[in-house]
């Protein structure tokens, strides 16, 4: 029996069915990447594994036991970092460490937290508040917080999607290094097939929603440590990428919907701050949107 097992998991919000019959089996120590379009239900899926959401039907099991609530065995890195803005880097991570190890002495906790801050190269920023950090740094705090709980399995929800390409590459290497150090089970959600191939043992595409479900898994046979530069010329890599992208686009072209919806927008057009405020360009009245009542949006693959 696999370490993490999802059996026919479906989830709908109200009447809207987001995920349908999702099956997944992840072995201990395995690094699995789930690739999907935005809005397909990736966050919903990982929230169910984390125990934050309950499935509408089906079962989720970790280590043979039904997942009913969040637990310290699962460390999660949220898509939007979710750091507490009133706590410093140190305090954010300490909060997690304390919660998991209530009996530790303050010294031991401090040492533990410092270790994880160092692991993600943030020691110089340890006393900063999240608002003083760049996106990449916040993401690293979020990763350190999850790791400091010493979870069995690490759930990463698009941890790098919001970052620029260079920071992204650096953090990918960091995630890869951390994983190779203590071989935790990892489920990585991403919208970038390349990222999945570079990091994971196995890639599973999530079809486009609604009623999204997991497709066949693609094994990544590229030996580790993987080299970012040479991987681009690797035939297996290229083939994998073609297959995954093709599968995902195929799943999307089956759906072609036109939605007509009532637009509920603020009545005032936001001002474009890039336009310099000269006296001539100055508009006395804001632009009203009142006339625009309805808009037809074609949703294309």
């Amino acid at each position: 029996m696999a370490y993490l097992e999802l059996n026919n998991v479906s989830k709908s919000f109200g009447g809207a069915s987001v995920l349908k019959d999702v099956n997944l089996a992840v072995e201990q120590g395995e690094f699995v990447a789930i690739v999907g379009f935005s809005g397909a239900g990736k966050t919903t899926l990982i929230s169910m594994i984390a125990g934050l959401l309950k499935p509408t039907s089906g079962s989720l099991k970790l280590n043979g036991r039904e997942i009913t609530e969040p637990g310290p065995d699962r460390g999660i890195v949220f898509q939007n970092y979710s750091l507490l803005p009133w706590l410093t880097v140190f305090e954010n991570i300490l909060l997690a460490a304390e919660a998991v190890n209530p009996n530790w002495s303050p010294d031991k906790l401090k040492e533990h937290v410092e270790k994880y801050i160092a692991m993600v190269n943030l020691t110089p920023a340890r006393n900063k508040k999240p608002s003083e950090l760049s996106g990449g740094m916040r993401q690293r705090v979020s990763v350190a917080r999850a790791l400091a709980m010493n979870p069995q399995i690490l759930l990463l929800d698009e941890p790098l999607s919001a970052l620029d390409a260079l920071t992204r590459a650096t953090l990918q290497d960091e995630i890869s290094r951390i994983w190779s150090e203590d071989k935790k089970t990892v489920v990585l959600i991403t919208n970038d097939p390349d990222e999945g191939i570079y990091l994971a043992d196995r890639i599973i595409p999530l079809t486009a929603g609604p009623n999204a479900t997991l497709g066949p898994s693609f094994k990544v046979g590229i030996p580790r440590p993987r080299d970012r530069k040479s991987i681009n010329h690797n035939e297996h890599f290229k083939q994998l990428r073609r297959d995954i992208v093709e599968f995902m686009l195929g799943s999307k072209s089956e759906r072609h919907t036109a939605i007509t919806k009532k637009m509920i927008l603020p009545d005032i057009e936001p001002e474009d701050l890039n336009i310099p405020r000269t006296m001539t360009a100055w508009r006395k009245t804001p632009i009203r949107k009142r006339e625009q009542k309805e808009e037809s949006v074609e949703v294309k693959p």
Partner: protein
Amino acid sequence: MKSFKFDWLVLPLIGVAVVLLLWQASCATWAKDLPTPAKTWEISKPYIMEPFAKRGEMDQGILRFTWYSLILVAKGYFLALVIGTPIGFFLGLSKTFTKAFDPIIQVLRPVSPLAWLPLGLVLFMGAGKNASELGALFTIAICSMWPTVLNTAVGVRAIPQDYLNVAKVLKLSRTKTLFKVLIPASLPYMFTGFRLSLGIAWLVIVAAEMLTGRPGVGGFLWQEYNALIYEHIILCIVTIGVVGFILDRLMSLVEKKFKTA
């Protein structure tokens, strides 16, 4: 820099001058009983120049009176926060609690301090010579706590799901969740409530002192009205306004500090 001075110094001074002129003109035309600005200054001078003098129970420097009022306000305001904040938290956290108590809060909220005060005096009738103070405290507290209650409730309801998820994933205990997540997350809203409450508490104090005849700006105002020294009414009004303005400024400084934190 030049326009800065103009905006913040010259324009307000022009405003004051206009009001003084209108005042003077009113004295000369339709309001014959209204003391002129010069007369007001002359009669008020001893109270301003020796602001802490104590010549008798109801004849004291204006800042000394203000001080008495501030102490009473501080006590009543403190009471309002201590009672109002937890109620706000319950309202924010529990739908059932909201459904049960929101209607009664909406009904009690617009009741004027002038209506509450007699009830306060009745409630504490047994307290002898403390009755007027306790009645006043009751009135200040019950009138000024509503903004704290409502803003705290809104603040708690507005806590982003992300923060609550963090608390759930980290399995924080109830107390930890309260002190590390709920309170810090709603603090900016709470402080808006605290500031509005302080404004109301200061409004109420005058009414409370007038009706109970306690020494303080409001009590002094009422006494001088009865003693036909109308200049002092204006002195009191200006003092009440200035003190209220300063309190509001101080609170919004504190509020800003928490908004950015």
